[in-house]
């Protein structure tokens, strides 16, 4: 399920870049490839996006296809649904996932339901990009990790990149998909670097996880920022504990087979995701493993996430509640 990348020339050529640059590259390639694709959101044009993701796209594609919107999420989210139903492929940026609350009607009752309610007679090729995660002192209304809501809600696909390559590949798949996909970007890792395939047709199929590091003793299934933290930890523990790290990548649909195969080998599972724990993404991963690999488990499944509180402002408090590599280490130590 993992995607091979290699440096060099030809179709397999890669380039080191940040997640931010990889997302922008994906947007640029898809805007070039398909005239029906357009981008809209708050300050995505000349300002370049609040996290500078859209950057200079407006200079290449103009204000018609890289559209600044009023601060009006319900209006432009709804417009994206109407536009998609009538033949375009909108890529909407919701500046912070916390703001999805003000436009959730258009996501849950229109975007997610129209295809089914209409008996499959319309397609809904909407991509929503939004940012998640604490760590910047932005307090509770700009730091949430809410992807479980939409991974849970029928009719929406949800992906969450952890590396520059997956950021490019997942976003391109989302834009090319005829189904609604929400891409949850953790804002703390926009600067993270990695090799990214330059092939314009490089995509990562939605619904596939990636084994980022092979190991024998314990499986860590991680998302977003926790993938990088878990890989660093695995490196530190090498020689002592052999940690397999899986980047879940796609929250819904979920690549159950890769999870089951890994736990079948290691017998131990830690799930690391920045969601609140109750009813969280962790719970779904745990259930899939319980249903399909129960007899392979040698120890209780461990969850690393946020202890059902909001993200507080003070650095002293924020650092306390956010999951980190040391929490993953503690979880591993409890079961290995």
């Amino acid at each position, binding site marked *: 399920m993992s995607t091979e990348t290699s440096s060099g020339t030809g179709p397999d050529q890669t380039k080191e870049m940040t997640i931010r640059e990889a997302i922008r590259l994906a947007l640029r390639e898809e805007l070039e490839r398909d005239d029906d694709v357009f981008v809209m959101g708050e300050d995505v044009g000349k300002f370049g996006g609040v996290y500078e993701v859209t950057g200079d796209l407006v200079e290449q594609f103009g204000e018609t296809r890289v559209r600044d919107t009023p601060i009006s999420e319900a209006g*432009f989210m709804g*417009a994206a649904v109407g536009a998609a139903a*009538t033949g375009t492929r909108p890529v909407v940026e919701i500046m912070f996932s916390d703001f999805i609350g003000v436009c959730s009607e258009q996501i849950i009752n*229109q975007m997610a339901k129209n295809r089914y309610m*209409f008996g499959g007679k319309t397609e809904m090729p909407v991509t929503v990009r939004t940012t998640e995660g604490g760590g910047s002192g932005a307090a509770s209304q700009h730091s949430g990790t809410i992807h479980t809501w939409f991974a849970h809600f029928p009719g929406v696909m949800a992906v969450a990149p952890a590396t520059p390559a997956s950021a490019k590949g997942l976003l391109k798949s989302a834009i090319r998909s005829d189904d609604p996909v929400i891409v949850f970007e953790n804002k703390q890792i926009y600067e993270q670097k990695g090799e990214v395939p330059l092939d314009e047709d490089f995509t990562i199929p939605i619904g596939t996880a990636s084994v980022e590091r092979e190991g024998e003793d314990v499986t860590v299934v991680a998302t977003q920022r926790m993938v990088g933290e878990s890989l660093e930890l695995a490196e530190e523990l090498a020689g002592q504990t052999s940690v397999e790290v899986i980047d879940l990548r796609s929250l819904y649909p979920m690549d159950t087979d890769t999870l089951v195969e890994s736990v079948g080998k290691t017998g131990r599972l830690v799930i690391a995701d920045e969601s609140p724990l109750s009813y969280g993404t962790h719970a779904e991963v745990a259930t899939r493993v319980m249903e399909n690999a129960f007899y392979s488990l040698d120890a209780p499944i461990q969850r690393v996430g946020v202890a059902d509180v909001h993200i507080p402002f003070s650095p002293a408090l924020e650092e306390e509640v956010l999951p980190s590599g040391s929490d993953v280490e503690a979880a591993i130590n409890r079961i290995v």
Partner: protein
Amino acid sequence: MVVLDIETEDGQREALRRMLTIRAFDTKAADLFSDGELPGFVHLYVGEEAVGVGACSALESDDYITSTHRGHGHCIAKGLDPDLMMAELFGKANGYCNGKGGSMHIADVDAGMLGANGIVGAGPPLATGAALTSHLKGEDTVALAFFGDGAVAQGQVHEAINLAATWSLPAVFLVENNQYGEATPVEKQHNVQNLSETAEAYNIPGFTVDGMDITAVYEAVKEARKRAADGEGPTFIEAETYRYHGHFEGDQQPYRTEEDVAIWKDRDAIESFKRRLVDAGAITEAEFDEMKAEIHQQIEDAVGKAKEAAYPDPSEAYEDMFNAAVPEISDFSSGMRADGGENR
């Protein structure tokens, strides 16, 4: 199919035919509901026919409309097939939504009907989006949003209008003021005399027209459509009308009296349009009666066909969620069956 253009005599007769079809369809739906023959619940358009038909007669066939939970009239006005609508009301496999949507969600995107909508105020943003498509692709199509007076209190309606106005999109916002938002009179829900005053906030033209007069609605929408198509942006039209039935069938209507309803029935849109056509010589009384009888039979036939049609196979409940295949849906649905767990 006869073109709906009430500037010609053929088109006037077609408009009358569609108004009568709406009334016959929804009157029949009321009977079927009270007889317990329809699943779910229905919201009927009886009394408001001039708005839907007047507006759609001013649109081109490839223009888009968005609708409301009271959407049967918009469907018929836009030219949808009553047979397939009735099949949908019965939840049959050959209905517009294969039985998955029902009365509140009839849609035919290919015919420009972007869906009846169970959420008050959710349609206008969709119309803004359809207008955005037209703008992005350089097409000539216009999108018209039908919505109720109740929806004018919804924030997303204002966001949709602001967006369309700011971007000069080819949209028309048509509020059907039927005097009640569910069970509460319009004056208890809004602080303006006319809902069309809303337009001032967005620097777009706003008009209040007599929604019981098909010509008044037609002319207002025709003008609005022209502005939209000429790149001059949206128009806000309020059509004052009245629903003869309750908010939903079974509504006991404690919020109004029979006298209130009678005042509006005296101004019945079908009756007055017919009288005008008879006076002008566009139709005779005998032709009108014949048309009415034909439509009555057409709706009876639609009911007969809908009753005989097959229900969807239960397995269809797990289809149509996504264009792509999603293993979860097939795995979970088979896993919960008595015989399905064995293979997991």
